[in-house]
């Protein structure tokens, strides 16, 4: 491998394990969704952050492990996070000025 990083890369076994984790996380997401529907008291205040956290975890796992970003030069993660953060920030502000999200 270009960076001599080959031996750090997970082996198929680990990939399957990661996929299992992803599957469990997805199941948890769906479960949360039904929880929110079913149990009034929990409501969105709890499920929404929980869902966001779970999906962020999944996101991280795929990017870090499947896309090998953890094992790449920092330059690549810098690009990647810039894109993600910029998009998040710009659209959040846009939604706020349009009154769809309350920031100020």
């Amino acid at each position: 491998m270009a960076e001599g990083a080959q031996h750090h890369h997970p082996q198929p076994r680990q990939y399957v394990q990661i996929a299992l984790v992803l599957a469990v996380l997805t199941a948890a997401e769906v479960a949360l969704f039904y929880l929110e529907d079913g149990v009034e008291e929990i409501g969105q205040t709890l499920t929404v952050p929980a869902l966001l956290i779970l999906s962020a975890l999944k996101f991280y796992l795929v990017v870090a492990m499947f896309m090998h970003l953890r094992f790449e030069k920092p330059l690549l993660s810098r690009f990647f996070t810039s894109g993600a953060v910029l998009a998040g920030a710009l659209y959040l502000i846009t939604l706020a000025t349009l009154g769809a999200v309350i920031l100020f």
Partner: protein
Amino acid sequence: MAELVGGHGEGAGHHQVTGIDSRKLGMWVFLSSEFLFFGALINNYLLFKGRDFGPGALYPVELYDIPFTSISSFVLLMSSLTMVLAHSALARGDQYQTRTWLFATAFLGVVFVSGQFFEFGEFILHGLKLNINPAASAFYLLTGFHGFHVIIGVLMLMVLGFKSMRTGGLSEAEGLNVELVGLYWHFVDIIWIVIFVLVYLIQ
């Protein structure tokens, strides 16, 4: 593996200062801009989903079939696994497995897109047309744009798979292509992870 491609083709002739193959760097650079594409579409959906379009308006949320979408999301998630297995097999030099996993990934992609077509069909039958209200427009444009990405990915996977079949295996030079298509594929997957939560689960 990747750097052996060095001697050939575009993005290669020169030494590579960052130590990252130019094509791979290019792919990551491109993917970072993809966030802005999808972000804009998600932004639209989030804006319109809460708008009031008057009495009797039909919103996408009302038609979601969460179990169905959960399964197709799961399918797409697993296609990332098969994709990474294809790449890993190639790194070991196992051409047969590479090919198998490539086709498996393409197949899962097709299943996902078919699911989406089915979902669209259902929604349209229930009267949720593209032009019924902006929320519907935003929903279709977002998921459609994502589906389009999946279709492109499937095409690229097929080209790689068939090439491997025809020539008995992918050369090391083409190995980079597997990695690049893989990156693209995982990216499309993570976007769906976001869409699944923001669009489907959080209502």
